[in-house]
């Protein structure tokens, strides 16, 4: 049986992992983390007359990628597991 601290450590770890993947999915399932995204600028009159499509510019915008999500998952798993055993040891000692 797990004690309250162990349950808390596991629940916190699983919650962080769940939130991480929820954010990753919400932001478009990107393989790699993006620092910038493309947006279309409104066309000027002259650009329309010359048959030009909207110009693209990069703006700062963080999009979480799978690689960072996996790193976060790994770190959280290690910490949660360590806490799980740490709390077990303390209880047994008491």
């Amino acid at each position: 049986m797990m004690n309250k601290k162990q349950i808390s450590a596991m629940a916190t770890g699983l919650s962080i992992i769940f939130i991480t993947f929820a954010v990753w999915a919400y932001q478009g399932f990107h393989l790699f983390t993006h620092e910038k995204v493309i947006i279309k600028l409104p066309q000027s009159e002259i650009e329309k007359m010359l048959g030009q499509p909207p110009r693209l510019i990069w703006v700062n915008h963080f999009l979480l990628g799978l690689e960072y999500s996996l790193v976060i998952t790994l770190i959280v798993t290690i910490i949660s597991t360590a806490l799980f055993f740490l709390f077990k040891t303390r209880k047994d000692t008491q």
Partner: protein
Amino acid sequence: MIKTLINIFCILILITSTIHSQGFDIKTSGVQTFSFKDDQQRNQTTFTSITALDEVDGTSNDVSGNISFDVKNVAATLKGEIQISTQSLRTGISKRDKDLVEPKWLNAEKFPIISFTIKKVTGLKKLSANKLLLDLTGTFMLHGVKKDIPVEATITYLDQNSITEQREKGDLLGVSAKFQISLSDFGVENMILGTRVANIISIGVNIIGTNKI
């Protein structure tokens, strides 16, 4: 009677020549040369790679070059070259931008310029008096390798007026082109080619040039 027939014949010749005109029907005439160097870097090329794992969208705003042609006979006289700085490619991920110019990819230090040189016009369709749809063949150079490729381009000519002057002085030429290249044809070999980065890259060129050089 004979005079009437001659008149009809002349009108028919005029109509036929207009239909088969190989250039613009605008006020300007003669050979015009357009420069696409824009200090404000508003000219742009785009590229897209799509694989099952990832989609990469990129841009370059460091575009330059010249195009010249006889306004009334674009098909036979069109020539020029468009250049892009290899260092200027951006994909939204700074590490990927750095990787892109490394020797294992495009090797910007050794091959700083990506270019397209027009060889000939293989097809021309007049969309309006100042807009032409062209099928071109040209030499694309990437990674130091040259290869002839087909390109579809729309060119639009605007005589100088109060609206064009808001952008630049002189007559303006808008060029919008798209084509595809295969990276392996240009000696770009990489382990992740075909998985994370597609071998086939779609390229778009959207540029405006002025003849006031």
